[in-house]
């Protein structure tokens, strides 16, 4: 089978349409993962074992099972419990939960890296726990985490094709639909690869910049 440039141009608008959804899913998924991760990280540190343990197990479980199956679960099983999610919402929740467990580890590392003396100084300044978190710990913990977080968000971007399995019309699904109707796989599949590669290469440079900008803390 020969490569057909004309066909490539013809399918480009459709692919771009899908790409838009891919980007939206990644952005929303990242925001959700950032929030979910924080919840996981903070709850896992809870002194109450009845909170910390189940949350810990849940995070392990989510991290140990495939995102694809989790998506099926969210999309096909939850409705029998009366929770009906649109494909994109289910997809974003799946990405957010799954990557939230990774992000939680990044938060944990970042928080553990804030020296104990900072907690103690906050106490000596009589800050309450919320003030300590907001004004002392998080501002120091978050910047060094940014490169690692960005890394996971890029990884998430590369997993968005899984959303095609729950009927989200993102890049991969558009490509498959093109392939199905035209009986040509080579161009759409390759172009999807190119899209991902281009974004990845750009993000490698972005990451380097983030690492230079935020990677180090001066104390």
């Amino acid at each position: 089978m020969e490569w057909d440039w004309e066909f490539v141009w013809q399918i480009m608008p459709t692919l771009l349409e899908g790409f838009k959804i891919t980007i939206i899913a990644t952005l929303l998924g990242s925001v959700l993962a950032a929030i979910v991760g924080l919840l996981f990280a903070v709850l896992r540190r809870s002194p109450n074992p009845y909170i910390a343990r189940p949350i810990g197990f849940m995070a392990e479980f989510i991290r140990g099972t495939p995102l694809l199956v989790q998506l099926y679960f969210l999309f096909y099983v939850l409705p029998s419990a009366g929770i009906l999610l649109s494909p994109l919402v289910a997809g974003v929740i799946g990405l957010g939960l799954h990557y939230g467990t990774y992000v939680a580890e990044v938060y944990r590392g970042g928080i553990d890296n804030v020296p104990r003396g900072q907690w103690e100084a906050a106490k000596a300044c009589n800050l309450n726990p919320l003030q300590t978190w907001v004004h002392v710990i998080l501002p120091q913990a978050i910047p060094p985490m940014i490169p690692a977080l960005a890394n996971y968000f890029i990884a998430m971007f590369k997993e968005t094709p899984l959303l095609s399995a729950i009927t989200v019309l993102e890049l991969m699904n558009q490509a498959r639909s093109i392939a199905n109707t035209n009986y040509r796989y080579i161009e759409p599949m390759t172009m999807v690869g190119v899209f991902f590669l281009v974004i990845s290469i750009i993000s490698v440079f972005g990451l380097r910049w983030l690492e230079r900008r935020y990677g180090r803390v001066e104390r």
Partner: protein
Amino acid sequence: MTAPIINIDKISKSFGALKVLDNLSMQVMPGEKLALIGPSGSGKTTILRILMTLEQINGGHIQIEGEQLYHMQKNGSGLVPANERHLAKMRQKIGMVFQLFNLFPHKSVIDNVTLAPRLTKKVPRIDAEKRAMELLDMVGMADRARNMPAQLSGGQKQRVAIARALALSPKIMLFDEVTSALDPELVEEVLNVMRKLAAETDTTMLLVTHEMGFAHDFADRVLFFDKGSIVEEGTPNEIFSNPKQERTQAFLKKIIAAGHRV
């Protein structure tokens, strides 16, 4: 006779199996300047950290200005462990300066000083900054108010840390080896600030130090610690020139041999 501002009553403290403080009692009078000396591991830091509520005690009681620190009255029926709210109230009376400064590295010098008043006492920014500038001026750091901590030398950091602790106007100040992490040539600038502080305010001060000369000049009273209890106490002259206990003598001899001025 006035009442002690700090009354430590038979407290004990263990880390796991290690008993660090054993049935220790001591009193501090308002405005008193106290130096705590003794060999490494004798529990000096631990006492300060307990007063700052950074460590829990395993037994005994502490009163600050007659009020329980780790306990509180429960509707007349007796003492119960203090809750966070009670501890926060008690902490208002106490400030601490750490060996490693523990400045907030993401905040400028002035923000380090104003953070606590603004958050805990809701002092308006403008007032907090005015007061902070006075304090920074006192420690000789007014011209560095907009710098970040990373741009300062160790001695400068420690002076800012002192200003930060003073910003809450505590009645009691705790100093834990505030010069021992500094390069030798920077020690004096911090000690000068502290001399000035001791002379100018009537804040009660507890100082842990290995600088015997400074302890001599600074303190009204010196406590010599060993293995978690007070072996000897007295005026600086009594302790440094005429120690009665053998252990105190041995400790001072070792310090002198190591080249420290007494």
